């Protein structure tokens, strides 16, 4: 899911980086003092999740957890994922420094989308199964959107779109399932031990 240095064409790189900078700026403005521990924990979670590899045919794909990050953090996912991706590129060689912006955009934008799509539905009092299904959709949707953005990035850098997109999405189907289940479990757990995470924030995060 991480794009490596030198794959993306310059215009795409510039556009992606600009959008990522804007996203990070919005995220930084929205972070509340009391939200810092949350941001830190989810950044660490995203940082480590990428090390969990699932073998899919010849390729290896890894977990993203950007859905969960997005539901909980909203726009703060941008700075959180920027930090995690920066450390991943430094320590593990995933991605690269020049493509940091576009990678951040590809993973944090779906996170923010997940926030707007699934946060409000999750806030209500549902039965456990409904909560799990909504969270599952968020986890799987985060991966799917990231995969689509990745394919789009490669397309705008002069590569075939349909073939690449299909290959990427197919390779990430198992990841979507695993992430959906993990996100569902995590949200059920969070709703039990700290229901206020899902209740009070929307007012503060949405201007």
């Amino acid at each position, binding site marked *: 899911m991480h794009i490596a240095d030198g794959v993306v064409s310059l215009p795409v790189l510039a556009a992606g980086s600009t959008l990522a900078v804007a996203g990070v700026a919005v995220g930084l403005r929205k972070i509340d*003092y009391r939200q*810092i521990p949350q*941001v830190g924990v989810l950044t*660490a979670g995203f940082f*480590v999740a990428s090390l969990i590899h699932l073998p899919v045919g010849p390729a290896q794909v890894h977990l993203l957890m950007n859905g969960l990050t997005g539901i909980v953090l909203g726009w703060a996912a941008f700075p959180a994922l920027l930090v995690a991706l920066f*450390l991943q590129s430094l*320590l593990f060689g995933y991605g690269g420094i020049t493509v940091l912006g576009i990678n951040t955009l590809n993973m944090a934008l779906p996170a923010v989308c997940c926030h707007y799509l699934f946060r409000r539905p999750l806030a209500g009092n549902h039965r456990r199964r409904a909560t799990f299904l909504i969270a599952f959709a968020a986890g799987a949707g985060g991966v799917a959107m990231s995969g689509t953005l990745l394919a789009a990035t490669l397309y705008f850098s002069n590569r075939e779109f349909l073939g690449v997109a299909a290959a990427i999405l197919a390779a990430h189907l198992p990841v979507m399932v695993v992430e959906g289940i993990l996100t569902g479990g995590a949200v059920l757990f969070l709703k039990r031990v700290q229901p206020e995470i899902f209740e009070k924030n929307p007012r503060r995060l949405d201007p």
Partner: protein
Amino acid sequence: MPLVSRPRRLAPWLALALLLVVATTASAHKIMLFAVVEGNAVTGYAYAPGGVRLPNNVITVFGPNDQRLGTTKTDAQGNFTYAPKSRCDLRFELNTGDGHLASYTIQAGELPPTLAGGQTATSATPPAAAPAAAPPTPPTQRHQATAPCPGGVGAHCPPNAPCRAGVNATVGDEQLATMVDRAVSRHVTPLREQLDDYEQKVRLHDVLGGIGYIIGLAGMAAYWLAKREKG
């Protein structure tokens, strides 16, 4: 409120636990063993991190299933030699008796094939007979390494060269190349495995380091935001 004061009471215990963990892991790694196959014998040395050699220590050799095969002793320089009787996994263990333990395993594949299963191919060289400070390569190996005589033509060798025409006649260039290849791969394989282990360990440290960075950044952000809220 007991809930408020509990973290404060816990802190010294946590610090103590952390100290204990650090202390035990530090002392558990204080001595080390290294061994390598040279000819028909295994030579090695015992040392402490920092390069200090450990002289006059008894090293016990274990075979598969923890079967005790024998002992050897480190000399004044901390070196030891052991001549295995059979080709099997050998575990060298140094227990100094004061809580320090080091072990090093030589895989069966590293030992020369001439030692095939239980044959006493090394009966000619009794254990510990070879001095540990002996030249690192046995004569036959040195001959192969330093005298690339063309096969079968003894006249090409200088008169004082340590090569015998009989050997040269039987070892062709290709044969020599495969022998060298085999020997090199036999010695390099364990290194590669060690490198893999090391890489795993570095990876773990990277993960822990990254999490540490994130916690530090979160702390800094909290500090800045708290300052801004106050000001």
